[in-house]
């Protein structure tokens, strides 16, 4: 491909944000050929997103950050162009679907870029309509006049792609485009992207849900925590040879690779690790039969245990927000000490249900009881002592000036004695590894630290119910594991846990029971293993099977012992 102008040439690049001492990216160097699709990986905080902004030329043209080294985007030195000038050459799709919509209709939205770049008037509309047709959002002009608010998150991300495609850029950059989407929307996004991947466009993609993205990727570039390139090669080279090392660095792996590592398939250094179910299947054919699946179901908690008392009873609960009913008559019993997952696509009513249980939104009709006492009759302080609620965005809950005051807040509003407050706050600082930051402002912590702090503030009143809203959202592999470890430890102490999420593997690995919501109604509830194996139901809810089970089912075609596998823990190497 050396006869073509490279899509991207990065040499010795580092970026520094204003008022920061630290250079992000240790002299990053790599090339991307025309038509190549590169997957850019690395633990959170390593500078992937910053690098992407530099690749697009937004740094330094639009963002006041310093770039060292050179980046040639479509052959143009990004240091020499003014803001916006690269837009004809490079398209960018960012993480948040809401933050990319400027105008009031799909058509206007796609025309926005064309108008900015002064495309000939008579070309603008046909080009915009063609782009909308390409991503499957509008066949006719009528359909193109819909407002973007009518689209789902997945639809709005495809709109962002259409906006980029209308300008026919030779480089397309995508920064975790499916991070805010539910599983089905995310799969739909990747099938759209696959249909578009021609051989003329260079694509750089940051993503941590690798299984869909890997099908499209030609190359993988991995950054270390300090932002240097540690691996650069085909997916088979990078994951096949270095799987264990990457996992230890906190990089997400393809599920089949993770499963192979659990099976100890990396014990033979000459064997490449599998990336897909098919590859895992054929490796299992070649390996000795002492590698096994453990038929071990999670100890059942909750309602199946006849001795467990009902902790939360929801009966005929209806909730209306702004006049429209968003929760339609939910009936649900949750036992003491149960770990219950609440799953559903965005807008299914998951958070509304948990907020109603915590007494944060009023019921239109029906009742919710905690230990037999209606939530509506409880004083807010008493309710807060029973229920700890960790919201998705930790910043929304911060009220104090320092981490120490933040943790003690729940006790101070309840006028507990000073000695007790001090003692419990100090214990909490140690338990959540926050002592170093005790006198810092909560807003100055990193995302992972903010999350730990918000869990600590929820637990200070020693509630018997803990509600977590998307606890692993936007975390890298290592931090997600750390949060879940804390939650599992809490579960072991007998606290009742309600977790809102659409991460199906997280549910599969940890929850006793699962409630599936769709359009504000309860679709089904039951033990995790039973519900997750009901493929028709999962699809109806707009969700996907947990990836481990998807791969296990493929393996089960010839190895029946795999058919019941859905949790990572069920996979284990039995050494001879």
């Amino acid at each position, binding site marked *: 491909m050396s006869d073509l102008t490279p899509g991207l040439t990065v040499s010795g690049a580092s970026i520094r944000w204003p008022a920061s001492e630290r250079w992000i990216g240790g002299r990053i160097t790599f090339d991307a050929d025309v038509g190549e699709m590169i997957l850019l990986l690395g633990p959170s905080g390593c500078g992937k997103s910053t690098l992407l902004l530099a690749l697009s030329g937004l740094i330094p043209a639009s963002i006041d950050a310093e770039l060292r080294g050179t980046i040639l985007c479509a052959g143009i030195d990004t240091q020499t162009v*003014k803001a*916006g000038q690269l837009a004809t050459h490079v398209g960018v799709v960012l993480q948040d679907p809401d933050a990319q919509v400027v105008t009031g209709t799909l058509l206007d939205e796609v025309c926005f870029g064309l108008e900015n770049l002064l495309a000939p008037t008579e070309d603008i509309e046909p080009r915009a309509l063609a782009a909308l047709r390409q991503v499957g959002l509008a066949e006719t002009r009528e359909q193109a006049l819909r407002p973007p608010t009518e689209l789902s998150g997945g639809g709005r991300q495809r709109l962002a792609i259409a906006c980029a495609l209308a300008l026919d850029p030779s480089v397309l950059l995508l920064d975790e485009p499916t991070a805010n989407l539910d599983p089905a929307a995310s799969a739909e996004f990747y099938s759209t992207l696959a249909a578009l991947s021609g051989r003329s466009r260079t694509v750089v993609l940051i993503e941590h849900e690798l299984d869909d993205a890997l099908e499209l990727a030609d190359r993988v570039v991995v950054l270390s925590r300090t932002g240097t390139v540690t691996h650069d090669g085909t997916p088979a080279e990078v994951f096949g040879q270095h799987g264990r090392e990457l996992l230890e660095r906190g990089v997400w792996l393809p599920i089949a690779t993770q499963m192979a590592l659990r099976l100890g398939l990396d014990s033979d250094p000459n064997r490449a690790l599998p990336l897909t179910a098919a590859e895992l299947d054929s490796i299992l054919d070649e390996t000795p039969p002492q590698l096994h699946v453990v038929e071990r179901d999670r100890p059942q908690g909750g309602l199946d245990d006849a001795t467990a008392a009902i902790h939360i009873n929801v009966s005929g609960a209806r909730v209306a927000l702004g006049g429209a009913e968003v929760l339609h008559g939910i009936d649900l019993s949750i036992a003491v000490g149960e770990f219950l997952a609440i799953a559903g696509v965005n807008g299914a009513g998951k958070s509304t249900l948990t907020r109603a249980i915590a007494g944060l939104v009023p019921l239109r009709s029906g009742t919710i009881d905690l230990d037999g006492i209606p939530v509506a009759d409880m004083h807010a302080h008493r309710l807060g002592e029973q229920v700890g609620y960790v919201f998705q965005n930790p910043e929304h809950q911060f009220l104090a000036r320092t981490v120490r005051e933040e943790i003690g807040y729940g006790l101070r509003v309840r006028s507990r004695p000073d000695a007790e407050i001090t003692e419990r706050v100090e214990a909490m600082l140690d338990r959540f590894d926050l002592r170093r930051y005790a006198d810092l402002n909560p807003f100055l912590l990193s995302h992972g630290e903010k999350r730990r702090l918000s869990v600590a503030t929820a637990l200070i*009143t020693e509630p018997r119910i803990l509600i977590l809203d998307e606890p692993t959202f936007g975390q890298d592999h290592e931090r997600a594991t750390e949060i879940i470890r804390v939650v599992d430890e809490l579960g072991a102490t007998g606290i009742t846990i309600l977790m809102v999420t659409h991460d199906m593997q997280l549910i599969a690995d940890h929850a006793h029971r699962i409630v599936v919501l769709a359009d504000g109604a309860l679709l089904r509830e039951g033990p995790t293993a039973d519900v997750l194996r009901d493929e028709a139901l999962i699809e109806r809810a707009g969700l996907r099977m947990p990836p481990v089970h998807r791969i296990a089912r493929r393996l089960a075609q010839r190895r029946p012992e795999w058919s019941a596998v859905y949790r990572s823990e069920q996979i284990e190497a039995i050494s001879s």
Partner: protein
Amino acid sequence: MSTSTQSVGRRPQLAALNPVAKLAAVLPAVVLVLFTRDMATPAVIVIAAALVIIVGARLRPRAILIGGAIILLAGAWTTASFALLTRPEVVAGTPVVIDGWITLHAGALCTGMATSLRLIAMMLLALVGSLGTTTSALVSALVRQGRVPYRFAYGAVAAVRFAPRYRQDLLTIRAAQRARGIIDRRGPVGYLTRTWRSLIPLLAGGARHAERLSLAMDARGFAVWSGVAAIFVITNALGPLTFGTGMAGPGW
């Protein structure tokens, strides 16, 4: 097929007119009302504007009744208040209407009614000028006919689109803070502390949103045409909006 798209022929007439033309049409009437002192001029304009709205915007009978009731109540209230505020020596020559614990002259009542009619006339004219206008229609018309700089028009629209998202954020923040055990007192003190507390997370979230939106705009060549990076336009519009949202609260 989308259910929300209306065919052009079925749109209410007020929505089909050019937004700038509508504003230009009502402006002379507004100026006229501002400088009249009699009762007849505003009364005629009130009736005419009401007719235009009823016919041109295709209001449902229920909406007309409610709107009419509101206008009558507001009219009665402003008439009474302005009548009481009129200096008695100005209207001393007119007959006395009420003579009890207050003394009200017919002249004061007339002044009050005239003022009230002028206010209603201006309200209705503003409605005629804005009914059926969407923000984007107004923006493109302003850019084309009004020669308003492109960057300000689009920057302002993008900022206005924050509003629903802000409202959602505010509801979440209030719920998130209540979950921490906060109970606000009723009345103005509780209102102020609640508002103050939600402003910081709202601003933090809003600034981040603004930054992302402006990057998305610049990535699509916004700055080429305008010469100004989107980030400046957006963040300038953000401050007032945050405070507006924080003050108005979720009831808005």
